[in-house]
């Protein structure tokens, strides 16, 4: 029996998570509506798994990093309404064990929760982009061509093409145009979540 702490500021979302998790055998031991409350409850309840809403009013990178530092043994699955490659990568680097989209089907969400509770990682493929791949993706979003990107990064066009092929595969994009569209849609390199840069 794995114990879970749900951290989300929407009572309705908490009720949904509680119900879904309960159905597959998790024991929901606590619910918090803020990062501050989550810390208090985690200290008291020592849950096996924490489901953490990325959009908490007092949340964000600092709050999550603080939480992870305070509870190193606790496994954390982040839930986010907006899940672009930058956020997925940033969360993985912060040290959480998984992230799942708020719009995911219940089955997908529960598979992620079970994997993280078992000690595995649960990230989309997009969380495994290298820093170079992210740079290339950002330039694609700005409309740059392969030669321009190669010159800017001081690498060969062939290498840029290699990065683009890997990006297509990791992000399930059939074409470079689809990658460009994704980069624009997700604001990659534009002060996206966790990049710490301003736009």
């Amino acid at each position: 029996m794995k114990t879970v702490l749900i951290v989300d500021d929407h009572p309705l979302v908490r009720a949904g998570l509680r119900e879904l998790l309960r159905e597959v055998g998790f024991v929901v031991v606590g619910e918090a509506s803020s990062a501050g409350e989550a810390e208090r409850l985690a200290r008291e309840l020592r849950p096996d798994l924490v489901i953490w809403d990325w959009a908490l009013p007092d949340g964000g990178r600092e709050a999550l990093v603080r939480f992870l530092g305070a509870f190193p043994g606790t496994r954390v699955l982040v839930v986010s309404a907006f899940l672009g490659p930058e956020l997925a990568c940033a969360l993985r680097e912060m040290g959480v064990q998984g992230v799942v989209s708020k719009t995911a089907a219940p089955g997908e969400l529960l598979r992620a929760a079970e994997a993280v509770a078992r000690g595995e990682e649960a990230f989309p493929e997009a969380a495994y982009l290298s820093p170079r791949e992210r740079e290339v993706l950002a330039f694609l979003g700005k409309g740059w061509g392969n030669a321009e990107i190669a010159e800017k990064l001081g690498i060969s066009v062939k290498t840029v093409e290699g990065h683009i092929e890997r990006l297509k595969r990791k992000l399930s994009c059939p074409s470079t145009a689809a990658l460009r569209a994704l980069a624009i849609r997700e604001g990659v390199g534009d002060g996206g979540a966790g990049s710490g840069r301003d736009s």
Partner: protein
Amino acid sequence: MGEQVRAVIADDHPVALAGLEEILRRGGIAVVGRACTGREALRLVQELRPDVAVVDVALPELSGLEVTRRLRELGVPVVLISMYDEEVLMREAAAVGAAAFVSKMALPQEIVEVVRSVAEGQILLKEEPSPSRVARHPSPLTPREREVVKLLAEGKKIGEIAEILCRSPATVRAQKASAMRKLGVHSTPELIRRARELGIFPP
């Protein structure tokens, strides 16, 4: 004891949909249909003829507002729900003929009470929100913050926005940060999307 209230619910977030069902079920309301898109919601309501439809504002295919407009013609009252507690949205909801507007931040018992009242024929939203209602739900962004968000949505950079608005980049950055904090978002794309959903500017 009267007959149990029958509701159709619609939300594109499966977790929120599950939560809504659970809250209503515990409140003694029967959820007879669940939809993930606006079209599905419309179809289910036409087919099942519930006492009330509980519809998320931000539905794909057919927006919650459009669904509400059509359901009003069918004579099924609608409770619009939203992730955001915003005066602008409440006014929109009233304009399309929703019987009530409730935030997902509301407590479960509050949601149940609103749905029950609406199923019983009450209209909780007036065309113009009363001053007290507005005062209780102040708009989160200042006009200056809105300007910054709007320009960000147009693809402008901080430096350009600073020039357009005759402010320093530091001020613009601070206003952007403040808007992000208020809307509970952590990136520029999220800020823009959420501001759009709030109706701060047209999509």
